[in-house]
């Protein structure tokens, strides 16, 4: 992890950029701060995430990317002493609004974690989990949705004959795809992935990347990655985070070929990070 120590003038000179997009904005963030206790970890984040595209968040470790996406589905609510300030709108509705139901929100915004975390149950029961707690008991409907989710996660053919085997018997890459299938089963609109391939070998990684490419037709995808090549391959828009701020946010090509900020250029050319 690179720890960046900036002089105060440099910090002040860091740009606060929001790129106003108007076509089909799914998630709209304005002036969002986040605090762990008294420590401020996100500073005035403002950006619009477009629907049915892949948006990548890149930047050195520990600069708030994970915190940011966890704020969108309010996973940070679980952590004591953590709070956010500002606006996050999904389809125009405030995520932190008084009438937002957190449980429902988390169904709509699916999440896949860095290290796959399947339940110690069968493959079938893992994918069925979200459906069952939602009240779905009909076996045929469950079978259908599970097959569809596993297919969308490009895992169906590998497991269709052993749906009742333990999920823990799968390889790392398969487990991660299972977690994706599990998240897809509850029919989210947005899928957030926190470094989904960082614990996987290159072949499994490329499978996940292909999967992301296919999924974006139906889902809005936000992916956190410290692998720049991955971001360049997979995403339509990229936001460069640094020290809890968005330094630059633009079309992926622009970020990598023609970045506007020097800091962005330094990062993507590997001068640090």
């Amino acid at each position: 992890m690179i720890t960046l120590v900036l002089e105060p003038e440099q910090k002040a000179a860091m740009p606060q950029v929001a790129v106003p997009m108007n076509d089909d904005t799914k998630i709209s963030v304005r002036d969002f701060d986040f605090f762990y206790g008294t420590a401020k970890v996100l500073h005035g984040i403002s950006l619009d995430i477009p629907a049915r595209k892949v948006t990548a968040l890149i930047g050195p470790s520990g600069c708030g990317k994970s915190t940011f996406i966890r704020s969108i589905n309010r996973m940070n609510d679980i952590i004591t002493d953590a709070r956010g300030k500002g606006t996050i709108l999904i389809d125009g509705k405030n995520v932190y609004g008084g009438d937002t139901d957190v449980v429902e929100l988390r169904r709509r915004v699916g999440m896949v974690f860095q290290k796959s975390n399947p339940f110690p149950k069968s493959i079938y029961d893992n994918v069925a989990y979200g459906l069952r707690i939602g009240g779905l008991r009909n076996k045929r409907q469950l079978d259908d949705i599970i097959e569809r989710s596993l297919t969308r996660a490009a895992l169906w053919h590998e497991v269709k004959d052993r749906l009742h085997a333990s999920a823990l018997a799968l390889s790392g890459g398969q487990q991660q795809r299972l977690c994706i299938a599990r998240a897809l089963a509850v029919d989210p609109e947005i899928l957030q992935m926190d470094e989904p391939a960082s614990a996987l070998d290159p072949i499994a990684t490329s499978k996940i990347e292909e999967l992301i490419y296919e999924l974006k037709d139906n889902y809005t995808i936000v992916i956190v990655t410290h692998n720049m090549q991955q971001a360049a391959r997979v995403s339509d828009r990229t936001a460069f985070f640094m020290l809890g701020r968005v330094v630059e946010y633009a079309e992926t090509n622009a970020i990598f070929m023609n970045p506007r900020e020097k800091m962005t250029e330094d990062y993507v050319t590997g001068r640090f990070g």
Partner: protein
Amino acid sequence: MTRSSDDRSFRIGTGAFAALVLLIVAGIAFELTRQSTLSITKFGLKFWTTKVWDPVSGDFGALPFIWGTLYSSILALLVATPIALGIAIFISELSPRMLRQPLAYLTELLAAIPSIVYGLWGIFVLVPIVRKVEIAMGAKPALGVGMLAAALILAVMVIPFTSSVAREILKNVPTTQREAAYALGATRWEAIKVAIGFGRTGIIGAVMLGFGRALGETMAVTMVIGNSPQISASLFKPQYTMAAVIANEFTEAADELYLHALIEIGLLLFIITVGVNLLSRLLIWSTKRRAVTTVIAPVVAEVAA
């Protein structure tokens, strides 16, 4: 002395004391068997199926005590387990951080109270209350002493053991499991259920630990159970347990056969409790990497912290 012979005598010296511990355990098993041969040879397997316990005529059967021990322990488990699990869940998942230590400490305090003090409280406080309840329920012998009082007091004594092990188990469930549940839209209780599911083997082990504790409890039980060797499903009748009959009649045993019969009961108690404890240890260990006794865990955890 050379370095290596010094080391060798160190190894042998400490090893001798380690061997002593081994000898003690073997010795217990051996001595219990040796001191019950008269009874074993005279009654054989019938000992475990006979209801009669008559010291005067020399006719001994352990069935009432086996019944009493199992019945009281199982009843105690039924009461204690949900409470102990509820406490474990509350402390590890629900309570505000500030309350965790004090609540944990208070629960441990329940385990620190000696059995005799529980018994004293049982005789003078619990039994009168139970008697009032029995009268209100129209129970036939409304004595207060009996299976109900024994089961209740055992339940209280068992709670801290099951609870603190269950708490350890829950602490060791990775947070990512709960996060996965929350991310799928689970409510708090649903996420807790996922954690319990992950640690279910260990939690069963925790319950068994409580069971083992209840089986061997002597003083508190003998002071409130009525000490009457009858087999009955009634909660209100006085009954008898293996540990209680040994405690009460050991020094009264006038002849050797009587003594041997009592010790044979002790042998069975030994086998059952050791078996249950080992099983529970196995279950707990398979969830956690180390087997830790509930008495030691707080010490080591604090010291190691």
